[in-house]
């Protein structure tokens, strides 16, 4: 297995793979799709089954991969899969079942442009799918949006920690830029995988074989009695409310004195930093608000700037998806505008700056 210096240069996709091995993930199940295939390729090259004991398996489809994740998660194991937009669409059935059965796991989506087969270029057009429930039923997916290779590495651990804390699937919603670009990264320290005894202790619901001392563990999302099913749903909703209260994460840059705030996530937030610098050079006080958790969405934190700023510009690599949540958060107090490019086109800082000037009629 490759040994690294303290800080190394690598792709976001590679960072995901190395982080997974290091933090003691038990299993990865995937299917090749651009632009995230390096995740499974790196894992296969590193062959962690010979070192940490991590299982890495190439499934026959994304559907099989997510259901392998279900089977592993139901055993209380720390398991994950990764894919890109069309493949994530195929996984939606499984994600709904995982949420309904309250199973922890990590799903990585390195987004590409859609709809359909679309393009292999970067995009953020799966925002709705991730945060509004891409599968059927009233469920929520803990959604983390990394903006750097470092966060790709860090969010593997964070995603699984949150997943196990709440018995809920978690997603890293990255984009093709973050997956493919190389940056310096400090990989997490090695942590051994949990033993079966530890899993039985931490996850008393896990199906690892029924000892004489307890009743059978049954992992299911099925309940035919509508009154009980409603109670199950209310339990989920209470959990989602707790996550919304406790787990919101975001970053602000130069927002303290800002007259305008650019709201962006993932790679788009990095581009917006340069756009902000261009604006500040022109004397326009611009700040950045970067949601890190897309669900739970940092609505209160965004709204806290409503009294201070003259407007928000949401910048996305899609047709305007997150802007709806920003508008809900701001609730009409100040204008919330949108700028974005579609189909795999990545906006430049100058384009974002121009959009800001145009939307708010600023002196150029």
């Amino acid at each position, binding site marked *: 297995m490759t040994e690294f210096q303290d800080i190394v240069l690598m792709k976001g996709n590679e960072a995901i793979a190395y982080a997974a091995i290091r933090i003691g993930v038990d299993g990865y199940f995937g299917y090749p799709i651009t632009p995230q295939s390096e995740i499974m390729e790196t894992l296969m090259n590193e062959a962690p089954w010979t070192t940490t004991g991590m299982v890495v398996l190439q499934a026959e489809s994304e559907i*099989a991969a997510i259901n392998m994740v279900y*089977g592993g998660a139901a*055993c209380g194991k720390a398991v994950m899969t990764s894919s890109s937009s069309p493949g994530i669409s195929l996984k939606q059935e499984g994600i709904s079942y995982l949420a309904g059965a309250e199973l922890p796991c990590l799903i990585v989506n390195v987004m590409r442009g859609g709809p359909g087969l679309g393009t292999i270029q970067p995009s953020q057009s799966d925002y709705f799918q991730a945060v509004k429930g891409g599968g059927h039923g009233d469920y929520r997916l803990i959604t983390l949006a990394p903006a750097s290779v470092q966060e790709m590495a860090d969010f593997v651990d964070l995603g699984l920690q949150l997943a196990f804390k709440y018995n809920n699937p978690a997603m890293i919603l990255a984009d093709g830029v973050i997956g493919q670009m190389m940056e310096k990264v400090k990989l997490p320290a090695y942590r051994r995988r949990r033993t079966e005894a530890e899993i039985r202790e931490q996850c008393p619901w896990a199906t690892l074989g*029924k000892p004489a001392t307890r009743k059978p563990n049954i992992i299911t999302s099925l309940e035919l009695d509508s009154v009980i099913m409603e109670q199950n749903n209310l339990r989920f909703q209470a959990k989602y409310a707790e996550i919304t209260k406790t787990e919101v994460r975001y970053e602000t840059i130069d927002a303290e004195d800002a007259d305008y705030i650019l709201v962006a996530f993932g790679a788009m937030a990095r581009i917006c930093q340069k756009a902000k610098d261009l604006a500040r050079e022109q004397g326009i006080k611009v700040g950045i608000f970067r949601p890190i958790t897309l669900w739970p969405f940092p609505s209160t934190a965004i709204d806290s700037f409503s009294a201070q700023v003259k407007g928000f510009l949401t910048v996305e690599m899609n047709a305007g998806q997150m802007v709806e949540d920003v508008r809900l958060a701001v609730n009409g107090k100040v204008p919330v505008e949108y700028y974005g490019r579609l189909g795999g086109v990545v906006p430049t800082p100058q384009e974002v700056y121009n959009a800001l000037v145009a939307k708010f009629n600023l002196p150029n």
Partner: protein
Amino acid sequence: MSIDIDIVSPENMVYAKPELMNDTHMHYCPGCSHGVVHKLIAEVIQELDLKEKTIGIAPVGCAVFAYNYLDIDWQEAAHGRAPALATAAKRLNPDKMVFTYQGDGDLAAIGTAETLHAANRGENIAIIYINNGIYGMTGGQMSPTTLINMATATSPSGRTTSKDGAPLDMSKLLAQLDGVCLVSRQAVHTAANVKRAKRMIRLAFENSMAGKGTSVVEIVSTCSSGWKMTPAASNDWMVDNMFPVFPLGDLKNI
């Protein structure tokens, strides 16, 4: 005309419901083959002392509630996906006994890919395949194994080859795969058949624990509600019509 009460004592008991099958009344229709196969799985798990090591994967279909009847750990899969769940459960826990329980809609239609690929990888799991040629739970629709001319809710005039293709013989397909060590087709309509079916389920479980690859035991079964016959008439119909298309015996045993 009286029952000899003296005989009713533990040392004379020759047959009883297996302990692993709990007292919950099963939801299956009267005469349903599922119950017999459930009993056989329970007996095999008991006899091989795998109670504390077994993870069952339940399907979607009538047997979706299998987990209510056998006191082991269970995972309930999405329709057709049981072999994918089983793949991960077994790979992550190589010392456990992992089996799937699937019907012909689950295994031969929506889960064909998962089933064939798990078997092709030679996953060390046992697949118990209940083939009654019909979707029972949803009300008797045509399945991939519905016989030609057999009328169902979605083939009301009978299945035709020209429109729906011929009945799909999954066991024959599975037997071609190198990862598969056992494919046996059995039935449970007579005591003798029940005993043979149990021997093959036991072998499938033994193979799984010995790491020999994938074992498949198909049970040609009845669905008296879906077939619209009495249970006894269903058995006769199965012998006359199902067995010629799905003949009993071992397709592979290595």
